[in-house]
């Protein structure tokens, strides 16, 4: 249903992921959009010749800084770090729901299809002015799921939490 994926140009291979934090851009449809290129000060997200083109990444230049994450209007940019700890990876996820989780909180790691895959520990919450109300949540998850966890579920619905 959303299978217009061409795959590889925006997703780093296992070798690159084994070297440290790196961006993953899950943008597989040509739409008129280019803020990710503007956000990257490493020159890793290449300039667009046509604003409708898919982003192209020079993974050798990407240092996994994550500046591009909250800039993407499609919330399609993540940073994965498979070198975080033995057996554990960190995925940085844009998250625009309340309540925001806090550092140390246990949440669920969720797949692209909304399925809970694993327990996840929040190790950092970035929410400065630069993030412009798109906070970035760092979650620690089993390393084997680094390319599967793309969302988190923070216990209960946001509305339940607000009410209580």
């Amino acid at each position, binding site marked *: 249903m959303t299978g217009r994926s061409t795959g590889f140009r925006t997703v780093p291979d296992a070798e690159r992921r084994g070297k440290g934090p790196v961006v993953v851009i899950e943008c597989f449809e040509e*739409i*008129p959009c280019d803020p990710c290129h503007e956000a990257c000060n490493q020159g890793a997200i290449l300039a667009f010749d046509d604003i*409708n083109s898919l982003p192209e990444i020079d993974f050798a230049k990407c240092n996994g800084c994550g500046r591009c994450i909250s800039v993407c209007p499609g*919330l*399609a940019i993540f940073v994965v770090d498979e070198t975080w700890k033995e057996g554990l990876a960190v995925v940085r996820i844009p998250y625009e729901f309340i309540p925001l989780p806090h550092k140390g909180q246990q949440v669920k790691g969720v797949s*692209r299809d*909304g399925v809970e895959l694993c327990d996840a520990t929040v190790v950092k919450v970035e929410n400065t002015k630069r993030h412009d109300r798109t906070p970035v949540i760092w979650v620690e998850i089993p390393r084997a799921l680094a390319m599967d966890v793309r969302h988190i579920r923070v216990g209960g*619905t946001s509305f339940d939490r607000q009410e209580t």
Partner: protein
Amino acid sequence: MSSLLTSEICVVGAGPAGLKAAISARDMGAHVTLVDSEVNLGGQLVKQTHKFFGSRGQFAGMRGIDIAKLLADEVSRDPSVDVMCESQVVGFYEDGTLAIEKDDSIQFLKPERVICAAGASERMLSFPNNDLPGVYGAGAAQTLMNVYGVKPGNRVLMIGAGNIGLIVSYQLLQAGVEVAAVLEAMPHVGGYDVHARKIQRAGIPILTSHTIKEAHGTRSVEDATVWALDSEFHPVIDSERYFEVDTICLAVGLTPLTELLWQAGCRMVYVPELGGYAPLRCENYETTHPGVFVAGDLAGIEEASSAMIEGVVAGLSAARSLGYETDGFEERLRLAKNELEALRQGPTGQKVRQGIRRLMALREVGEGI
């Protein structure tokens, strides 16, 4: 009878297209009267809490609500733009006079040029009990929650997986409203893939080739029956499913809000790709009625980013036609047209490109009513 007001350029509608048109005409030196029926300037931007696509020129990456503030501030502090809020243009006479209703009285304004940027209205869908309270246009539900802070309901069935259906579903989730499912009659999602992914991650099913059969409820919506559609869009027998919901949101498309153009006698043509009847217009967005320009969804349904650039083209051209001339006018106009072209280049712009080609071909052969 009140006296006849005058103005150089009247811009009708202060959404993204109208605001940009007013600013661009003002930049050329023209005096502009900007009229809008709402309390706040910004049109639909005032409820668009999501970040915009496009490029820097159209504020890509900024949220619609912040773009509205930025553009509204710019016109509000400019003495050469008169802003009339809570004022509805209800008549457009053949001699070019506009009737404007404000505070239950009518004022008459005869501008030298008019830029119509009235936007679009949401389409309705026919199904039994679609008049029950709880059936909303998706845009109305979005206004309730994002402008007035009111939850439209507790559990929603969204009809339509175009960008509006997908974005409003996401914003309902942000407001703490449950979304039972998003239905789409077409066999594929119409909106951007990234918008679909945002709600799929949140676990919301998108049922393609499905539509609503019937809503049920005594005093308001209590549940809904949906069914599958085959490749000919006929309902599939025995495919019914039930959803317990108190709200049904319709996001089944927009149609240009062209009443004023009909009144003015602009020639109109039916172009399905542009959302229905659209005005014939030239490359500078002037209609067949000399001095009447158009911009934004009223000229053909598209994105806010292209609406803003159409506003630039119409604003510059209207001011130019009054004799205003600034250095770099030609260059600004050329850049704006190039930007429009670029935005429409990709696969998502195909429908609009086709619609505009059809519009221009019909103009060529003198079609239109």
